[in-house]
């Protein structure tokens, strides 16, 4: 418990120190602070006793926060949230050190905001109290807004506004839903409680199916914006494209995962009936997203935008695994969240490194950089392969299990987990593998390989040279030092995912426990439901 | 709806006409005030509204057979006179500043 709070509060304290410290010391302070936070969390993870049980540790305490409605500052991890938090704590130092030379103005604010962003994401992952989760979830927008709006690209203002308003709108659905559940709990038991476990068991057991349907729909709508799921994804390409490198990294790395994590942690356990009823709809959106975004990636010329759209496609597969509603898919999905954070984060980092040298990321103007930067090219190919799911690297395990889970999510109960999807979904989503190879190799083929093309206007390059000492040379030791840990983690997960799978397994089974029954009910009522849907789309009379 | 009760004796048509006229004058005054940009015409339109108000006072005074209506017209005249004196003085001042009577010339006084 203390270590959790330490990992959360160290960045906050660092931000406070940065605010009063010398501007030149800001980045060093931030690096130290983020590493200390990572250390605290790692220490917690080291002694974490529930790796293989799926339980929450420590049991959330009743530390009062808002007494009148019994909201607490309950924090605790199970293995899934701890893994995501570790990913977050791991990426933040990389972001901080990755911004070492890229950010030259208003450094104190930049690193201060970054530390606050870090703290709020950690709060969201650690929270066991839904209101606390909401606070962490929502507060991430504030630092991100500033990070994008101040240090972003030419359209940063618009991007930041869109990011903020869009995802804020989505969060309102989510907030409304959890307030509704809390209120229902109060109405039903006379007690206020905002504990995730309590609310989940209450909602899944006590709320009628119809209510669960709408509850799930609202939660899905809220989190889908963050994920982002087609068709509410349009804020992402712009935000990614305009954000500074580190912003993109953390956005792709962990912020999007807040959405998937929210669905996994809140939507699925709270409303199993709704989940079962809406799985097909959501999965259709996911598969559409996979193909749609992949095709869009394929015609992008902006490297960063391409990777941004690829996130939409990839997270479609991730969500599809979740909606397979069986342990295979859900495991794959959780693993995919981590993998996507690593590989896409690394790709953004790499593109940022090239951008720092050339100030261009349009592939019409720049390309064949392997000739100038072989080490960069090596990592680029490495993470591309990780991103398109080459077996032996991390992307494969998650992607493969997601598709596998989708595939076997048929109505028969031979796995013990009947599902609503099946080979058709897997086939369509599987084309994402082909399309993924198409666009990522297009990126590599044009951006990394091919004849060397550099922007004509050399003044940018000169400028960069004078400013940061990076010039057009290959990666510096600092940059390589950032990428090597990422690559090693990718490799490790790809080669030996067993410990992670074993850690995720029990949590997933716990989450999915009510689903076989719910899915069975949905399957039984499907003919009627289909007719009812034809007659009156809003009617849902299973309850 | 306003049912006309046939049992009721007929009312005074003069009052009705007076009230209608007052309403019309007031409305026309408002329309004029809103649509004209000449400051003097705008003040004339306020005078039109005063006229409407005065007529309403007289009409209601007649309906209630009370002299207070007429008394209030006196006050209205007073206010109208005072307003005319001050407003026209202001108009002259403003005109000296910008050599125009258009109200739009003073847009920048807005906060935005």
């Amino acid at each position, binding site marked *: 418990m203390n270590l959790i709070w330490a990992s959360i509060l160290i960045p906050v304290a660092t931000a406070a120190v940065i605010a009063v410290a010398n501007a030149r010391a800001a980045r060093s302070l931030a690096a130290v602070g983020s590493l200390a936070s990572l250390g605290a969390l790692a220490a917690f993870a080291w002694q974490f006793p529930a790796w293989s049980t799926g339980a929450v540790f420590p049991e959330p305490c009743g530390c009062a926060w808002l007494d009148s409605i019994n909201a607490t500052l309950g924090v605790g991890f199970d293995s899934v949230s701890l893994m995501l938090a570790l990913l977050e704590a791991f990426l933040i130092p990389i972001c901080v050190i990755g911004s070492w030379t890229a950010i030259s103005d208003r450094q104190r604010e930049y690193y201060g905001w970054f530390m606050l962003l870090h703290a709020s994401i950690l709060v969201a992952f650690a929270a066991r109290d839904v209101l606390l989760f909401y606070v962490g979830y929502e507060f991430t927008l504030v630092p991100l807004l500033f990070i994008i709006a101040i240090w972003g690209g030419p359209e940063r203002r618009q991007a930041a506004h869109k990011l903020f308003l869009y995802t804020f709108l989505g969060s309102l659905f989510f907030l409304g839903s959890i307030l509704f559940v809390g209120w229902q709990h109060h109405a039903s038991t006379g007690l206020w409680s905002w504990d995730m476990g309590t609310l989940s068991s209450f909602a899944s057991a006590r709320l009628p199916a119809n209510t669960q349907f709408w509850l799930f729909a609202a939660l899905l709508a809220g989190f889908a914006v963050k994920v982002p799921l087609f068709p509410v994804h349009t804020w992402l390409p712009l935000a990614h494209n305009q954000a500074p490198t580190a912003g993109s990294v953390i956005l792709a790395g962990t912020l999007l995962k807040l959405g998937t994590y929210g669905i996994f942690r809140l939507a699925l356990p709270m409303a199993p009936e709704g989940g079962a009823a809406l799985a097909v709809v959501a999965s259709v959106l996911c598969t559409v997203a996979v193909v749609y975004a992949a095709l869009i990636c394929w015609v992008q010329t902006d490297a960063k935008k391409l990777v941004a759209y690829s996130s939409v496609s990839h997270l479609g597969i991730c969500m599809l695994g979740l909606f397979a509603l069986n342990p295979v898919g859900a495991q794959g999905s959780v693993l995919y969240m981590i993998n996507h954070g690593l590989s896409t984060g690394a790709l953004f980092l790499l593109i940022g490194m090239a951008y720092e040298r050339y100030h261009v990321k349009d592939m019409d103007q720049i390309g064949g950089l392997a000739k100038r930067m072989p080490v960069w090219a090596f990592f680029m190919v490495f993470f591309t392969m990780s991103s398109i799911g080459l077996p032996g690297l991390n992307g494969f395990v998650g992607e493969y299990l997601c598709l596998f889970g989708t595939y076997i999510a048929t109505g028969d109960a031979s796995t013990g987990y009947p599902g609503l999807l099946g080979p058709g979904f897997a086939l369509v989503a599987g084309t994402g593998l082909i399309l993924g190879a198409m666009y990522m190799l297009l990126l590599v083929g044009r951006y990394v390989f091919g004849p060397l093309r550099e922007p004509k206007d050399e003044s940018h390059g000169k400028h960069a040279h004078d400013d940061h000492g990076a010039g057009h040379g290959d990666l510096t030791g600092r940059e390589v030092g950032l990428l090597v840990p990422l690559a090693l983690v990718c490799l490790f997960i790809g080669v030996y995912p067993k410990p992670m799978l074993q850690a995720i397994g029990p949590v997933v089974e716990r989450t999915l426990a009510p689903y076989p029954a719910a899915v069975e009910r949905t399957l039984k009522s499907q003919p009627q439901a289909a007719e009812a849907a034809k007659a009156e789309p809003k009617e849902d009379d299973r309850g | *709806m*306003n049912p*006309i009760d046939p049992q*009721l*004796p*007929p*009312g*005074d*048509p*003069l009052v*009705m006409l*007076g009230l*209608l*006229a007052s*309403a*019309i*004058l*007031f409305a*026309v*005054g408002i*329309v*004029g*005030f*809103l*649509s*004209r*940009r*000449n400051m*003097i*015409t705008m003040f*004339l339109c306020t*005078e*039109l509204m005063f*006229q409407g108000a005065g007529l309403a006072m*007289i*009409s209601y*005074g*007649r309906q209630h*057979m009370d*002299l*207070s209506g*007429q*008394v209030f017209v*006196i006050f209205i*005249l007073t*206010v*109208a*006179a*005072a307003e*005319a*004196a*001050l407003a*026209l003085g202001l*108009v002259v*001042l403003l005109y000296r*500043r*910008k050599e*125009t*009577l*258009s109200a739009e010339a003073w847009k920048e006084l807005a906060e935005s």
Partner: protein
Amino acid sequence: MIPPLLYAASAICAVGLFLLLRQPTGKARLGATILGLAGLAWLLVQGVQASGALGFDPRVAIMSLAVAMATAAAVRVITTTRPVFAALYFVLVVVAGAVAYLVMGAEFMAFSLIIVYAGAILITYMFVLMLAQQAPDAGGPSVAYDRIAREPAAAVLCGFVLLAALASVVGDARTTKQPAAMVEARANAAAWNRMRGMPELVQERITAELAAAGKDPMGWSPAGGLEVAQDGRTAMMPVTLADGTRHETVLKAADLPVNSTSLGWELVTSYPGSLELAGVILLMAMLGAVVLARRQTDMAEDDRRAAAGLSRMNVEDADLAGDRA
């Protein structure tokens, strides 16, 4: 009045006025005028009908004419492109209004209206117009802001929503109406009552009554209060004559005080404070007009501060600087 018809008539008026505001010419102007007048006529007819009055009353005809004239003049006030004409049309409004006042029995106010408005206020307007108005071209309208009505649609919409609302109140007036006889009785009772506060007038009327009755008009003394008859047409007051006999003097309606007398009485008895306030208002207006009319010199902020004996701030008054340039 039946509100839908009322609203329809208002709407027609509104359309007519809107068209007129767009400064049409020729037949369009004629059509718009006719449309507006038709709407107005319909409105007035509805008003007269709603009053439930039967038979022809010349006062109603006069009143209708006055109202029509006032309205037409008012429309001209806001549609004409030349402010001088607007002012003159406004005089017409005032005159028509005075006619309506007269018909409704407010003689004093009718004339003071003409005197104050047409005689004083409008003359002021004319002076200001002469001071401020740019010299118009021969025959043509002078400046753009006079030629074009701005946002006439919004203005007409606002104005006529208000008109319809007000008119529906007018239509409702009848339900609160009492029988005409009773109204008159009450009015006369009020007037008699007011007369009690005017001992001189009562004395004069009684003396005249006594003389007419062939009694000794001198040396009488009141023997009781003024007792108003049930219908208010007469009032009786017992007096003790000089010879000691008691006589009941009967005063008739014609003996009631005239409008201006009653008004004056009402003013000083019921509204003395307001009267004082009105005086103050006029005084302040006069002072204000004097201040405003004082010769103003365009001075920048710093100059003004210097003139006031304050230290200069070296602030460039952009507005004035722009003006000078």
